[in-house]
């Protein structure tokens, strides 16, 4: 198992955002994390990424306990993430942005630039290589987020609603990118709301509701799960299944 979330809980004051959640991500797997708003997805996401500490429970990555380690530590160990609200380095160019990620694995500017160039090419940002991040369109910025994270050579990539608000064409391009990432053996954990795009893409799905784990399994099973439908998916999906 690449990632093991073991009985994790997290409360903020009186609010229990995550309650006894356990899940796993295998090497090279694509896991979807879904659930209604307020279900605790972001909290869990941030805990895995190291931006939040769990109140209880443990997180293991590649066999090592990483509970409570900070974001930079997690990144070094091979967990990279994107932000729902894109956080580019506006004053730096696209390649410089990606180089920041690349520097995670090397101290040499030359090597970092090389890695960055390579990542930029296969994520399709080559045409904007020397543009300032501030000049990019929102979908391009999102792609930059992903490219930057990829430059850190992660084993697990955490994507936070990267497919939200995209036109169908952009969404398809996004799916292709995730598939490419998958093809390179990088495991992906995606938080998403866009079911039509997510279900065909992922290997497994985890559903959160009200801070607890509601269901877990293959997409085909999840869309038939009565509880999930009631809580989140709605009748539309039941009819499809």
């Amino acid at each position, binding site marked *: 198992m690449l990632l093991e979330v073991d009985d994790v809980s997290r409360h903020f004051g009186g609010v229990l955002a995550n309650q006894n959640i356990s899940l796993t991500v295998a090497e090279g797997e694509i896991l979807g994390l879904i659930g209604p708003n307020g279900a605790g997805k972001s909290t869990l996401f941030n805990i895995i*990424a190291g*931006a939040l500490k769990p109140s209880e429970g443990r997180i293991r990555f590649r066999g090592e306990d990483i509970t409570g380690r*900070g*974001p*930079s530590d997690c*990144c*070094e160990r091979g967990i*990279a*993430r994107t*932000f729902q609200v894109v*956080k*580019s*380095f*506006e*004053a*730096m*160019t696209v*390649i*410089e942005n990606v*180089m*920041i*990620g690349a*520097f*995670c694995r090397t*101290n*040499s*500017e030359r090597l*970092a*630039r090389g890695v960055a160039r390579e990542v930029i090419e296969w994520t399709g940002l080559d045409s904007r*290589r*020397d543009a300032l991040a501030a000049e990019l369109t929102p979908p391009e910025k999102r792609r930059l987020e992903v490219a*930057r*994270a990829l430059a*850190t050579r992660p084993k697990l990539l955490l994507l936070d609603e990267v497919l939200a608000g995209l036109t169908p064409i952009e969404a398809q391009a996004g799916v292709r990118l995730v598939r490419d990432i998958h093809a390179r053996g990088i495991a992906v954990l995606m938080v998403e709301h866009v079911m039509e795009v997510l279900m065909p893409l992922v290997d497994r799905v985890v559903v959160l509701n009200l801070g607890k784990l509601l269901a877990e399994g293959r997409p085909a099973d999840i869309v038939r799960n009565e509880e999930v439908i009631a809580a989140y998916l709605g009748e539309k999906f039941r009819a499809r299944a």
Partner: protein
Amino acid sequence: MRLQGLPLGAAVLALVLAAPLGVRDPFFQNILILTALYTALSQAWNLLGGYCGQVSLGQALFFGIGAYTSTILFTRYGVSPLLGMMLGGLLAALVGLAVGWPCFRLRGHYFVIATIVVAETGYLLFLNWDWAGAATGILIPFKGESIVDFQFQTSKLPFYYGIVTIAAVLWLFSYWIARSKWGFYWRAVRGNPDAAESLGVRIFRYKMAAAAASAFFTGICGSFYAQYVSYIDPDSVLTFNQSVLISLPSVLGGIGTLWGPAVGAVVLIPMSELVRAYLGGTGQGTDLIIYGALIMAVATLKPEGLCGLIADLRKRGGRGARPAADEGA
């Protein structure tokens, strides 16, 4: 063919080194020396404030530490100021780390205020510290012309070349580091600390490194200044005004750029010295007004500073030719 990077640096250095040939009047030589001094000081400030984004308005503390360290070592224990400079710089760096440790958890204006408070505390401490001369300060007696003692009376030129050397070294350091991982990481910390962290940047560590480097060089400049003016007291090296003065050239010339501090210093220092000399008593405060107005103008109209302005003009002149992406400036 556009000149940039190292070749440009070399060309400027050549000009600077040759300058005294054309400038013989000690008054103007003094201006040159001060300009070079503030170039160096502001370049040091730029490391922490411009690249790393941690605006410090308490640099006078390091300036003063450097000055006092080398002066006390020289006047009381006969240690050569050349060595004293290094020690002063090191001590300043240590203090910088000590100050940074609690302060770097603050962001934005909170950090700025903290630097001001720390520097003011330092000022008050030195003002009341009898062993260090308290308010009367320390006078450096002239022991004879000597490079080791770094004292010269017949000519200002050795001082000039001394400070130019310091400024040049600092410039090279900035140039090298801007291209290195450190420079990139600093800019990431400035641009978006959360994102930087998620990409593996250990923010605290890099802030501390910037603080240490900045403080070190500021301290060295302090030592130089002490030897140059032969007298120091809290009011001349540790005040808030001094801290502000250190930061201004970078703000004017372009925060976070390689040439910003130099450009800013070249504009600010001669102007203020000349204004003060020619307007004297009646024009008191005029130099402040001009400073203030310039800073405001830059901050509102062109936050990238004069260097940004130059870059814009270049872009327009080159008719769409892209500036090199890895200029680092």
